[in-house]
């Protein structure tokens, strides 16, 4: 593989890792607060739809982003209602949200646009343009570094940079601010937070809302950055992969970046090399398709070891004694 191909694969990796990363960080906020969320998929999906739909109707990608975020946050609040206020089963609520998003998006899309659960293709201001970073053109002649900068680092849509900047931001919020301290505490020991006079419910709702916000960005990126419109089920399991990445990352922001890049790379490689020929034996395309999933299992079983989740994860908080 020559350098250029490598750059292209990595470029594709960055594109594919971005929605995973945003969703993974979304899950991180939620689960660090003790609310397990397998509804990332659904939230991304609904955000993808509404961002594309509003962008198509208004021609503004920013309004689209706003709509995507609002819709994902609303679904988050449904999850919050079920798992925080009514102490329901968080896994089930997540499953329901995934179904709900899968159905509602197509239903509404059909009602609004009549194109079989698809939004019209986005054009012009309805999509995120790619940003060329300063000096990208000037530097592209420089060997090694030049193409790296011009092709890999420069030339992505704004949301890609947002996604990557979210990593240090998440870290900082979590470990350097009062909100972060309380958030981590409520996922470990809600009773400690409660007796310290801080509202468990408030904190968890805040976390769940942030989760919705990030899922909203992730979904918008899918539909208005990576693609030019919404098609049904366009998240295609990314929410679950993000969840696996979260466990792999042991609920830590920098590790999440690594995990998502790894999964992005696997997807990029699987897309690029459909039938790998290993000295006469052709690896069938299905193996490449399944590779990210197989690797997830292998990683979970073999390398993650004891990934200790936030202690109160999945447990609704009930005041007692």
């Amino acid at each position: 593989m020559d350098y250029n191909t490598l750059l292209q694969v990595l470029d594709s990796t960055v594109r594919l890792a971005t929605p995973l990363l945003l969703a993974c960080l979304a899950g991180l906020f939620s689960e660090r607060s003790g609310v397990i969320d397998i509804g990332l998929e659904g939230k991304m999906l609904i955000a993808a739809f509404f961002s594309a739909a509003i962008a198509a109707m208004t021609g503004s990608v920013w309004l689209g982003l706003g709509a995507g975020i609002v819709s994902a946050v609303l679904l988050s609040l449904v999850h919050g209602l079920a798992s925080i206020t009514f102490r329901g089963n968080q896994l089930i609520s997540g499953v329901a949200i995934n179904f709900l998003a899968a159905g509602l998006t197509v239903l509404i899309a059909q009602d609004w646009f009549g194109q079989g659960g698809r939004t019209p293709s986005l054009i012009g201001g309805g999509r995120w343009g790619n940003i060329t970073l300063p000096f990208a053109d000037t530097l592209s002649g420089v060997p090694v570094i030049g193409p790296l900068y011009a092709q890999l680092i420069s030339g992505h849509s704004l949301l890609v940079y947002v996604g990557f900047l979210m990593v240090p931001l998440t870290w900082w919020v979590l470990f350097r601010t009062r909100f972060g301290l309380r958030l981590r505490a409520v996922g470990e020991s809600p009773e400690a937070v409660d007796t310290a006079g801080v509202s468990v419910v408030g904190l968890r709702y805040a976390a769940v809302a942030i989760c919705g916000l990030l899922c909203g960005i992730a979904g918008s990126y899918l539909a208005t950055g990576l693609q030019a419109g919404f098609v049904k089920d366009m998240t295609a399991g990314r929410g679950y992969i993000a969840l696996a990445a979260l466990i792999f990352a042991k609920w830590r922001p920098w590790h999440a970046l690594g995990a998502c890049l790894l999964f992005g790379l696997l997807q990029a490689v699987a897309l690029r090399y459909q039938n790998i020929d290993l000295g006469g034996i052709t690896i069938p395309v299905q193996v490449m398709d399944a590779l990210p999933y197989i690797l997830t299992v292998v990683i979970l079983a073999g390398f993650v070891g004891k990934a200790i989740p936030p202690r109160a994860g999945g447990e609704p908080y009930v005041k007692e004694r």
Partner: protein
Amino acid sequence: DPALIYDLGGKFDKSFNEAAFNGAERWAEETGGSYRDIELQSEAQREQALRRFAEAGFNPIITTGFSMSTPIDNVAGDYPDTKFVTIDGYVDPEEHPNVKSILFAEEQGSYLVGMLAAMASETNTVSFVGGMDIPLIRAFACGYAQGAKAVSDDIEVIANMTGTTPAAWNDPVKGSELTNAQISQGSDVVFAAAGGTGIGVLQTAADKDILSIGVDSNQNYLHPGQVLTSMLKRVDVATYDAMQAGADLETGVETLALEDNGVGYALDDNNRELITEEMQAAVDEARQKIIDGEIEVHDYRSDDSCPALSF
């Protein structure tokens, strides 16, 4: 009344199923008739839809997609008075005299757009994105490659399939990534025979400023000036004709080829600039030769192999 059953890709895939829809709409408009249609979502529904429509007296019942041939095979015998049409599918006419199978010579149309692609290419590299990896789609790819090679002997033809399941008809994200990969390998014309996935292909091609070729319906309008042409497969005509014939539809197996105008390439205002007169002349000449039998386009399905491309 006639009924129309779309395959899993859905009525608005902008290509195959949508062509059938357009044909039906045209029929309804012209004749003032009405028809009923349904988008399938599940396997068990195939037979169910056939039966329910047959029981309700719809005739003929037109279906798109090869996956409907097995269900029709199961059902046709129970409703001898109903005519069934399977577009792209094949049902033994001996066994079920009330079924019409409509097939297309996709390789011929693909040959023509392959020629156009080769003539438009500046990098001498063209590419193909298929939907689900089935013999039908390979026939597209094979015809395309033959056409391209007829123009330029040493042209490189890159062919990728989106997947191996019906989901491959509806995965624009993957279509887009495949196109990106092909562009990075030098392709500057990409032919998408991939149903809804093609939308992603055409989009990426337009974004990256290369040419693309649409399929089934005329997709030139999707990105005016950036879609070189579309390989037409006149599913709309087939649907229209079947509806027009109504209950008197002639059954049996029919293959629509260039000479029947069943396949072809699209030329309209959107791509007029892109197709030069020489190009058009060359293609029209080839078209005539194919009709006359002077050029023989190999059909992948005849022997599961392709002389111009390896999969």
